[in-house]
C-alpha cells in the first residue's frame, strides 16, 4: 500500500511542471558547479608545489558540488513538499485517501517515500556526474558514497519537516515558507553557538550532522540523528491528520 501511495505521489510530481522545472534547474546548477570545480582544480593544483598542499580531485570537486547541493536542497525540498498534504486539503481530495482502506501511517509514509524517490534522482545524478571523473583519474568512491548517503538523509529530513508543515495548512505557499524558515533555523543552529562548539543546542543542528558525511565519515550517531528527526516529523504529521478525523 505504501508503494501505491508513493507511486501516486511520484506521478503527481511529474504531472506538474513544478517537478520538471526543479529537476532541470538543480541539474543545471550542479552541472555548472561541477564544471567550475574541475576547472578550478587545475588552476589551484598547478600553483601548489608542495605535496602537503595538494588535495585529491574527488574531495576538491566533491566538496564544491555536495556543498552547493545541500544548500540548494534547502530551497528545493520545501517547494516540492509544500503541496503534499496542503494541496490535497485545498482541492478537497483528502477524503479520497481517508475513505480508501489505507491507514494514515501508510498515507504519510507513502507520500514521504514518493518525495524521497524523486530526490534520489538528483542524488543519483550527482553521483553519476562525479563518477565520470574516474575516466581520467582514480577517484575515491567511498567519499562519494558517504556524501550521497549524507545528502539523501539531509534531504529526507527536509522532506519530513516539509510534510509536517504541509499538513498544518491548506495553503501550499504558506507551508513552503514555514518549512523554509524552520529549516533555515535548524541548519544554522550551530552557528548561533559558534563560541561553544559543544553546546547541546548546536548538537540538534542539521548541518553539524551532515558535516561528518561530507568529510567522508559515516557515523552511526549521525544516521540515528537523521532517522530520529525524520520519524519525529512523520509521527507528528500522522497525528495532525488523525486530529482532522477526530475534530472534523
Amino acid at each position: 500500500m505504501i508503494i501505491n501511495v508513493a507511486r501516486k505521489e511520484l506521478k503527481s510530481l511529474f504531472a506538474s511542471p513544478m517537478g520538471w522545472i526543479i529537476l532541470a534547474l538543480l541539474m543545471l546548477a550542479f552541472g555548472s558547479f561541477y564544471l567550475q570545480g574541475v576547472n578550478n582544480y587545475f588552476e589551484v593544483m598547478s600553483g601548489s608545489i608542495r605535496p602537503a598542499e595538494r588535495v585529491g580531485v574527488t574531495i576538491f570537486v566533491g566538496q564544491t558540488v555536495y556543498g552547493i547541493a545541500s544548500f540548494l536542497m534547502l530551497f528545493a525540498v520545501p517547494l516540492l513538499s509544500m503541496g503534499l498534504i496542503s494541496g490535497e486539503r485545498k482541492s478537497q481530495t483528502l477524503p479520497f485517501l481517508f475513505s480508501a482502506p489505507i491507514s494514515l501511517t501508510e498515507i504519510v509514509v507513502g507520500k514521504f517515500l514518493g518525495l524521497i524517490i524523486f530526490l534520489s534522482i538528483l542524488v543519483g545524478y550527482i553521483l553519476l556526474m562525479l563518477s565520470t571523473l574516474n575516466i581520467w583519474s582514480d577517484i575515491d568512491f567511498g567519499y562519494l558514497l558517504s556524501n550521497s548517503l549524507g545528502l539523501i538523509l539531509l534531504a529526507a529530513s527536509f522532506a519530513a519537516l516539509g510534510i509536517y508543515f504541509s499538513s498544518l495548512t491548506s495553503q501550499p505557499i504558506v507551508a513552503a515558507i514555514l518549512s523554509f524558515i524552520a529549516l533555515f533555523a535548524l541548519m544554522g543552529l550551530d552557528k548561533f553557538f559558534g563560541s561553544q562548539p559543544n553546546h547541546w543546542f548546536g548538537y540538534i543542528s542539521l548541518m553539524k550532522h551532515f558535516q561528518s558525511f561530507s568529510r567522508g565519515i559515516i557515523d552511526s550517531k549521525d544516521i540515528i540523528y537523521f532517522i530520529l528527526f525524520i520519524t519525529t516529523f512523520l509521527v507528528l504529521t500522522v497525528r495532525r491528520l488523525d486530529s482532522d478525523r477526530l475534530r472534523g
Partner: protein
Amino acid sequence: MTEATLNAFDLSRQFGSNYAVKDVSFHLNKGEVLGFLGPNGAGKSTTMRMLTGNLAPSQGSVKICGIDIIERPKEAKALIGYLPEIRPLYKEFTVNEFLSIAARFHKVKSSSVHRAVESAKDKCGLAHMSNRLIENLSNGYQQRVGIAQAIIHNPEIVILDEPTVGLDPIQIREIRKLIKDIGKRHSVILSTHILPEVEMVCDRVQIIDKGNLVFHGSIEDLKQHRLGNKLLIGFSKPPTLTKLKAIKGVETVERAEQGMFIIKFKDKYLPAEEIVYLAAKENWGLYHIAPHVTSLEDIFVQLTQVQTLDDQTNKVEKT
C-alpha cells in the same frame, strides 16, 4: 428479515457544544437504494463522513457488514465506495490514470486493475474519455469519474453525497439513471435535498432535520405523506363549506389562498368525479382541480411539528 449491510447505532457528532447529528440510528438492506433527505445543514454530509470513516463520531458506532469501522477501519473501508459532496479528483491525471490509482488504493489485485478500470468506465459511460485529463472534462463527466472511482472495487455499499448538485437537467437525468443501475448491483446511500429525486431513485427514504432523524420509511409512505389524500380545488362561485363537506368521502375542507379549497378525503375514496359533477350541475364555476402536493418544506414542518407535539405529550404524561 433481509440482510443489513450497514448499521448505524446512536450516531452523534458534536462540534463544540452543538450537535450536528444526534442519536441517528438506521440500517441499510442489501441491494436497496436508501435516500437521505434533508435541507442544507441538516447533518447529511456529517453523517456520510462518519459512515465512511472520514470523521470520528462523538458517540455511537457504525458497522459495515458486521465490521466496526472504528475498530477495523481497513477491512470496513474496503467494502465502501464513497463520493463526497466535493468530488475528490486529482485533476492533473487522465481518467485512466486516476481510476487505476483508485483501484490500487482499494486493494484491487494488480492483475485485475485494468479490468476493473474498463468495467467502471463502461458502467459510467466514460469509455470514450479514457485519455482525457480530468481537468478538461465537463462538470457532468467529472461527476461520472467521481462515481466510477466509488464503484471501481465493486464495493458492497456505495455512498453518494449529493451527486446531482450543480449539474444541468440532462446530466442530472443521466446521473440518476446511472445511480439506479448501480442500485441493482450494490446497496446505495444517496443524500440529497431534492424530494423528487428521492422518489425517482430510492426504495426507502430517511429524512433528517437539525441532526435528528424525523422520518424513515418506504417511498410509498413518503408519497402518502406528500399527497396525503388531498385535492386542491378552485371555484369562481364558491359554494358553502357545508355543501362540500356533505360530499361522500370528504373528511375536512379548508380554505387556501386565492379562494381555493383544500379537501382532505378518506382512504379509498376519490371524490373528484362527484365534485366535478356537482360543480357542473350547480354552476360553481370550477376552474381548477388537482391532487394537492405538499412541498418538502411542508413535510418538514409537518414532521417536525409532529415530533414536538409528541415530546409535549410525553412531558405531560411524565408530570
